[in-house]
């Protein structure tokens, strides 16, 4: 938490937004930014690896490869150069899931570019959540929305796949559309929920609830076995 603590005595050399610094080994990229006095606002949300606000691009010394990571979850290493990608511009469809009538066809109305995937697999290689993004795009194109849902459940919407896609689409938005359409339109409504909603509508719990609400505070505690 406090970035000045003494846990890590060894320092590593990094470059942040093109400027060189020594920071303690064992810091995350975000902590390295705090350590060097950066005020990070764009680029932090949860600090817990789920909100996708902290997408970052980095490169290791002597290696031509560009890599990507979530900055709140990734430890700095000696010779690392990184910059945060605060917000990657994306195209998002305007639709209301309730009024979809033929979701599999409508995918191509809202996201016609999804059919242009060139199978380069860059999206899968970049995904910090280890999702097979390329496969999810194809499953969406073929209308297998169930598979899309299973493949992409851990997507944090960081947009890194978009940053690499040579067909310039937003695979995570396409996956979101497919998951939502699957949940709202394909999956049957859960039986246990339907039953309970019917019972509530009929008011079968009202009498007992009203009785509880009419009790004195002391009686209610006794009824509910409150241990003091």
């Amino acid at each position, binding site marked *: 938490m406090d970035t000045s603590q*003494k*846990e890590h005595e060894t320092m590593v050399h990094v470059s942040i937004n093109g400027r060189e610094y020594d920071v303690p080994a*064992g810091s995350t990229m975000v902590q390295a930014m705090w350590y060097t006095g950066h005020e990070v606002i764009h680029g932090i949300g949860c*600090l817990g690896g789920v909100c996708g606000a902290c997408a970052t691009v980095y490169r290791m010394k002597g290696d031509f490869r560009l890599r990507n990571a979530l900055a709140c979850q990734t430890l700095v290493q000696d010779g690392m150069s990184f910059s945060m990608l605060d917000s990657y511009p994306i195209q998002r469809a305007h639709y209301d899931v309730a009024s979809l009538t033929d979701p599999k066809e409508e995918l191509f109305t809202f996201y016609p570019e999804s059919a242009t995937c060139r199978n380069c697999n860059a999206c899968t290689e970049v995904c910090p959540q*280890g999702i097979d993004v390329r496969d999810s795009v194809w499953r969406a194109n073929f209308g297998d929305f169930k598979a899309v849902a299973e493949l992409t459940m851990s997507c944090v919407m960081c947009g890194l796949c978009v940053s690499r896609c040579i067909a310039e689409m937003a695979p995570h938005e396409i996956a979101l559309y497919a998951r*939502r359409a699957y949940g709202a339109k394909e999956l049957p409504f*859960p039986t*246990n929920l339907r039953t309970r909603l019917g019972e509530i509508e009929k008011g079968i719990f009202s009498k007992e609830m009203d009785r509880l609400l009419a009790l004195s505070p002391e009686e209610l505690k006794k009824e509910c076995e409150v241990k003091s």
Partner: protein
Amino acid sequence: MSDLVDSFYAHMPEFDETPPSALSPEERASLLKSFYPDYRPEGKATIRVGPNAGTVVPEEVATLLESRSRIEGPRLIPDHPDRDVDVLIIGGGGAGITAALHASEKGASVLLATKLRVGDSNTVMAEGGIQSALGEGDSPVDHFRDTFRGGHGANDPALLSVLVQEGPQMVEWLISRGILFDRDPQGNLSLRKGGGTSRPRLISAKDYTGLELIRVLKEDVVNAPVEILEFSPAVELLQGPGGACAGAVLWDLDSRKYLYVKARTVILATGGTGRLHLGGFATSNHFGATGDGLCMAYRMGAKLVHIDSFQYHPTGVIFPSEMAGMLITEAVRGAGARMYNRLGRRFVNELETRDVVASAIIRECSEGRGVPTPSGASGVYLDLASIDREAGEGTVLKRFPNIVKLMTRHQVDPTRFPILVYPTLHYQNGGLQTDPNGHTSISNLLVAGEASGGLHGTNRLMGNSLLELFVFGRRAGLEAVKESRERAPFSWKEVSMAHVDHFEQALAREFEGADRPMAPTLFPDYRRKDS
């Protein structure tokens, strides 16, 4: 593993699996009284100014409430407001988004202002699930009883009865939006058991429940007729005729300018306080959880309830230190994970309630049986290896993929090495006093979500908080539309920050002119002091 992690795990005691002796009710009570942070005398202060004067709270909470404004006097207001809307919603987590969707559906003009991006919130982080009484043999009444018992009988029965009765209807709403909850082979919503409930009642989306909720609802609110202002936290409320709320002042974090919003009704949905690090505790909360709503409303005279009551989740990661505060879900203990102290002994039944387990860990550490970390903290071992031993190799990976992913990124393989844990500040049990329609004690100021208090009593059960967001977020959204239609028109000339002037005068009298800290702080500052 890195050298540091290596050397930390080089000296581990032999683990002795002998179960600890069971606690009698008296022992349990005395453990809580002696070690649970809410009941400890140190680090506490008595509130001196405002509607809750006399209440003993953590020092950081007193500082938050008895603070001066970020806006210096004289607090002049520009000639015209920057925005004029029916409903202003402050905070874009689960409660705020739900309120915005329901208010805009009724045709009101809605502005949603939030501190980071929409959805960057405690809501997106929720892992466990939502409570809803859907099982055979379960009922909203049983849900009521369990929650009331869990909240030590301090819950407001009127709020609670609404929660349990409208809960299933809100689950229906979520499903209609296309949110995917886990199903059983018959197509029912799967129900899991959470702590303190008599029946399995948790519905979830693997361990990504909050993420699934936010991904979907965020897309809906972005597509709804709602104006959204991101990176624009509210820093002060505005007062209108009769002391009613009349809007808010937002602070644009990028242009560093104030934005004045006139609103017929305001909903506070600013969430919790974890990032104030009460008592120096690490936290599981998102970066913007600094209790802003409490502080702004308190200045206006709004009453708070149970604001001395917080939930410390027993198992937050404490080593490696860069992960401090990160939650390891309660479900691992349900699945058979064990806890050991520095001597390798178990010291509490792992299935006790959250407050008891947290107290026992604090006891071990304060009595010298904690495991020291290189940065001078201490914790206890949470060993997941026993899960694999009992339920078969690979179980941890299958059931807790997110934990394995996160720990491994920090060079600890939790299937082989125990995780070092210490309680982490998790949830604000109390908050702004409210009623079933979201009213606070200030006219035209409503509240929803973690910023409100009363529903959970003095201890929240897992899964009730997410349910609360939808039930009361919807109600507050609808009520705000109704109130904005009923409210008599008022002019911008009648709008001021007079309440802030009055509050600061009261502070000056009580603290004899001593300088007060400024709030809301908006974010914690973790930058190195000499950087």
